[in-house]
């Protein structure tokens, strides 16, 4: 299992979800949202106050122009006003005008301003320009309107908004980048920790999480140290358990072997008494069974305690050798054995692979009635080979499959058949040592046991 960097994690679709689940990502997203909101509120407040200030200034402008026009008509008479409006419109300096006669008819200026005919402030359109307008009634009827062009103000506000948005975007980007750079360091170390944990789960009890600074541990070092201490304890316990198992099996083996030898001698001496001889023979068979169980236990402990084997093994050769070795016995038991082989190479130990094939075949032969067809198949599967041993016997019910793989998990239905019950457990243990997967499928009817090996050409990190 390779350690995954956050970047690699983010690139895969599943990784993206994993990326989003991280606390750091969520905090970052929240920070970015807060930053955008803050910029938005600040921008809105600024634009409102700028608008208020400029509105006041524009109103003063409009009132000033109006006062100057008032002077004009008071001095020269209302009748002269259309000429003044025409002249000032011609010499345009930011103001628009509208003038109607006593009957409401258009006299001069912008027609839409002239059509307002209502006293007070308005923001109408004069042609294509937005204006701030003030309208007042003229003595003797008619309306006079002065409007200030607001186009410049609008442009300014647009520029300001754009600037604010740009600043906001840059701010968010900087905020995200710095936060990511600091969090990535943490993530990378957490990834190291979780890949160590994954290796331990895969059976490597010797793996420990890296600690950057044991003298002055930071919070992640503290987690790693606690994790490592836990692993030390677990591996010590597992080691003790293994040692006790080994010791018991080991110590019991010698006295049992001697007992068996004595029993054999007794059997020879009792040849004149057929009944006793038969009893002794049965006892002897039971002893052999016990010895084999201890052997299997020792072997199981040995496989589980050994390092992962790394030789290249010709799976086809090994399977063929085992199949041919077991063929006479299987066929004498009234079963048929068929082998379908493709060339395949796996990484591991040839003895252990052979042992796995033997156990699978013996399992198929021992727990099926005479007449069963057994098929051994090796498939190359373009680099990730598989070994399949399939029979058409009674099979194993789904609910009991896990039990069959566990030590001592011999199935109730086959309990009458002799066997240490460790056969499939040993296969499972060998599979684990080889990074392979042991699957027990229903062959409908029968058992279809498969060993799925990893690609032998890939480096076995």
């Amino acid at each position, binding site marked *: 299992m390779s350690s995954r960097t956050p970047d690699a994690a983010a690139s895969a679709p599943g990784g993206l979800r994993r990326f989003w689940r991280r606390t750091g990502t969520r905090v970052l997203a929240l920070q970015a949202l807060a930053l955008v909101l803050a910029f938005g509120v600040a921008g809105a407040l600024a634009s409102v106050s700028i608008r208020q200030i400029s509105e006041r200034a524009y109103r003063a402008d409009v009132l000033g122009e109006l006062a100057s026009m008032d002077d004009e008509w008071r001095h020269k008479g209302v009748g002269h006003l259309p000429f003044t409006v025409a002249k000032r419109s011609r010499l345009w300096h930011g103001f628009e005008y509208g003038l109607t006669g006593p009957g409401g008819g258009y006299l001069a200026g912008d027609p839409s301003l002239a059509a307002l005919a209502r006293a007070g402030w308005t923001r109408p359109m004069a042609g294509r320009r937005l204006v701030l307008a003030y309208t007042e009634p003229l003595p003797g009827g008619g309306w006079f309107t002065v409007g200030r062009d607001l186009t410049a103000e609008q442009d300014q506000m647009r520029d300001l908004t754009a600037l604010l948005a740009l600043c906001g975007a840059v701010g968010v980007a900087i905020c995200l980048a710095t936060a990511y750079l600091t969090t990535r360091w943490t993530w990378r170390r957490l990834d190291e920790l979780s890949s160590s944990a994954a290796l331990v789960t895969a059976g490597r009890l010797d793996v420990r999480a890296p600690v950057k600074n044991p003298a002055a541990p930071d919070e992640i070092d503290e987690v790693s140290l606690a994790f490592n201490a836990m692993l030390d304890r677990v591996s010590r316990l597992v080691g003790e358990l293994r040692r006790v198992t080994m010791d018991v099996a080991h110590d019991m083996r*010698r006295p049992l072997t001697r007992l068996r030898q004595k029993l054999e*001698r007794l059997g*020879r001496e009792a040849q004149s008494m057929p009944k006793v001889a038969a009893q002794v023979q049965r006892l002897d068979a039971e002893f052999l069974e016990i010895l084999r169980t201890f052997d299997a236990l020792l072997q199981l402990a040995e496989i589980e305690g050994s390092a992962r084997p790394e030789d290249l093994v010709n799976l086809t050769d090994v399977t063929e050798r085992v199949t*041919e*070795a*077991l063929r006479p016995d299987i066929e004498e038991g009234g079963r048929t054995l068929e082998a379908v082989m493709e060339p395949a190479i796996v990484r591991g130990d040839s*003895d252990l692979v*052979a*042992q796995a094939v033997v156990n699978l075949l*013996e399992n198929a032969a021992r727990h099926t009635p005479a007449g069963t067809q057994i098929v051994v198949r090796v498939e190359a599967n373009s680099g990730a080979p598989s070994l399949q041993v399939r029979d058409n016997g009674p099979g194993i019910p789904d609910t009991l499959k896990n039990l069959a793989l566990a030590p001592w998990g011999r199935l109730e239905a086959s309990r009458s058949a002799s066997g240490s019950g460790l056969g499939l457990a040993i296969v499972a243990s060998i599979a684990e040592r080889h990074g392979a997967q042991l699957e027990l499928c229903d062959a409908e009817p029968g058992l279809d046991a498969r060993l799925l090996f990893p690609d032998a050409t890939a480096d076995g990190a």
Partner: protein
Amino acid sequence: MLLLPPDHAAAHPARPRAHPRLGRFALRVLIIEDDVEAAWHMADDLEGFGVEAVVIHDGAQALAPGLGDGSFDVLIIDRMLPGCDGLSLLGQLRERGVETPALFLTAMGAVADRVAGLQGGGDDYVVKPIDAEELGARVQALARRRGRTSDTTALSCADLELDRLQRRVRRGGQTISLLPLEYRLLEFLLLSRGQPVTRKMLLEQVWGFRFDPRTNIVETHISRLRAKLSEGGGAPLIHTIRGAGYVIQDA
């Protein structure tokens, strides 16, 4: 130099005598094993075959002059010795020109151990605990291996002949056709003619199995081989040694 416990001679006054199943082989064996009890058990087992066993518990002692100079037929060396690894001990002995066949003992049969042991000058490698018969048969096979070259082209036993060049087997002039596995089984038996070979030795040498399958592979093949060899009516040549193994010999 015979380092026996004081009460040993009293406990076994009748030794050495012939082993009931394997006979006597009159050999001298040096056991280098730090586990005192296991060492004496082994010595005891071997003396049952008439083998004279000298026991030392310390690797350094083995390097003392006079011990490794060829006065022994076989060395039995534990892989794990205090202060000295069995492997490097044998390496030093081999450097001094000691050619005595060596059998490594180990508590665990880890593959790496085994390969290292065989590459490091060991001639056989067994995982403890080892049965008396197994040990006896292996010691005898190792001792006999010295005098015999395995590149002999013609093997025989009574009127049975095996031609290793043509891979042909004849008995009383009659050709017997054997399957490849049966041929290899017979070849191995004939190479150890007159000596017992155990099930485990056959599994290792003929089948290449370092473990004992529950299926009676050896028994089945031996019985087929026996049947083929006796097709012409000749006397049985392959004999079963109960609880120990097989031997091929002229009646």
